[in-house]
Each structure stands twice: as structure tokens, then as C-alpha cells.
């Protein structure tokens, strides 16, 4: 079960398993990191850059630099883990039927794993043709 506590000490007592406590801590740490990464990402692409000018060449230019590949991949990995675990909390709360809940999770996790694979491929394995 997801931890409902609002204090670390209580969360430690409430956690059914140490894995559940690790997820609880991970949500907080990844959350802080994601706030900064995402504000930077959005500021760069929507405030500094004109959104409507974003095309293949712009993306290629940006992703020709290793720094941005790593930056974007960090967002991808952390956001999928953070979002996937958040979705697990929501499904545990809102899908009551165990069979339905199981299959919803199978579909959701598979989709997220596929998106992680697809995103990683385009970041690291695709040659955008920019030097």
C-alpha cells in the first residue's frame, strides 16, 4: 500500500516494506530534481525560443550536444519513474477490482517501458546528422 504519512518518521513506521519506503523517498528526491530540470526545459523552449519555430533542425541542433542528451534523458528517466509510481498510487486508490487493477497496471507499465525505450533510442541512438 502507498504511504499516506506526511512525516518521514511516520512514513518509516507505516511502510509495509523497505521497498515502499524507498519509493516514498524517491518521489521526494526526484521531485526536487525534476522541478529544476523542467522549469529549465520549458523556459528554454517556450520563453527564450519561439515555440512555433521548433522543427527538426532545432531539435537536431540541440541534441547534437551530449550535455542536452544527458539533460533530456535525465528528465525522461526520472519523470517516467516518478510518474509511473504516482500512477501506481492512483490505481491502488481508485481501481478497486483486483483483476482490473492488475491488468491496468500491466498495460500502463508496458506503455511507460516502451516510451522509455523509444525516448532513449532517439536521444542516444539516432544520428540527427549535425556535426
Amino acid at each position, binding site marked *: 500500500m502507498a504511504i*499516506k504519512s*506526511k*512525516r*518521514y518518521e511516520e*512514513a518509516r513506521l507505516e511502510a509495509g516494506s523497505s521497498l515502499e519506503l524507498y519509493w516514498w523517498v524517491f518521489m*521526494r528526491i526526484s*521531485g*526536487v530534481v*525534476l*522541478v529544476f530540470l*523542467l*522549469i529549465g526545459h*520549458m*523556459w528554454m523552449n*517556450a*520563453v527564450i525560443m*519561439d*515555440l*512555433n519555430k*521548433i*522543427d*527538426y*533542425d532545432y*531539435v*537536431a541542433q540541440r541534441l547534437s550536444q551530449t550535455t542536452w542528451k544527458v539533460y533530456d534523458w535525465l528528465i*525522461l528517466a526520472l*519523470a*517516467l519513474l516518478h*510518474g*509511473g509510481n*504516482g*500512477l501506481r498510487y*492512483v490505481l491502488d486508490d481508485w481501481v478497486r477490482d483486483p483483476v482490473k487493477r492488475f491488468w491496468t497496471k500491466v498495460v500502463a507499465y508496458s*506503455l*511507460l517501458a516502451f*516510451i522509455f525505450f*523509444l*525516448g532513449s*533510442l*532517439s536521444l542516444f541512438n*539516432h544520428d*540527427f546528422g549535425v556535426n
Partner: protein
Amino acid sequence: MYRGREGQWAFYLHRISGLGILVFLVLHVANIASAMWGPEVSNALMKFYHQPVFQIGLLALIAGVLYHGFNGLRIILMDFTRWGVRYQRQLWYGVWALFVVFYLPFLIRIGGSILGGGHGD
């Protein structure tokens, strides 16, 4: 722990914004990954997303990310400080103050381009 009023609104908005962001993330990665099918496919898809209706969606998304992020910091303060839970309501108004400060530049920039008709080719 808290029912009704600000605490409950904060909780529901956090969940809904979180789910919305996750859905966007899937579409966004699929869009960027289209580059693997070449510039033509990629540019066609991006041009499709430059329509004003998606820009409005993007404004909603940015609002969701900023709220979810700042409210997440509020949750962390409630978890790890001795006073956080006591001041959860005041903190929530702090979240909205931060939200307005960070959202305005996006609203002006993207809203301006929607109204100015500077979209697509």
C-alpha cells in the same frame, strides 16, 4: 489528515496535474522519436502540433507542471520540517504566489503568439 478546504483541493489538483503531465510525456516522447523516421515525418508532425489548439493545451500543461512542482515542494516541507503540516494552508497560498510569478512569462509569450497568429507557416 485534512478533509475539505485547501488541503483537499491541493491533493486533487496534484493528482490530476500529475496524470495530465504523464499523458503529455507519452505524446511528447512519441513526437520527438518521430525524428527517427526522418525530417519530413518529424516536421509534418511538429507543424501539426503548432496549431493554436495545441498551444492552448501547452499553456494548460505548463500550468500543470508549475503547480505540481511547487505543490510537491510544499509536500516535502510538510514531510521534513516540524512546522510544515501546521502551515500547510499558508504554504498552499505560497505555491500560488510562486505559480503566478513563473507562469506570467509563459502566458505572455505563448498567449501572445496565439493571439498574434504567429503559428505555423
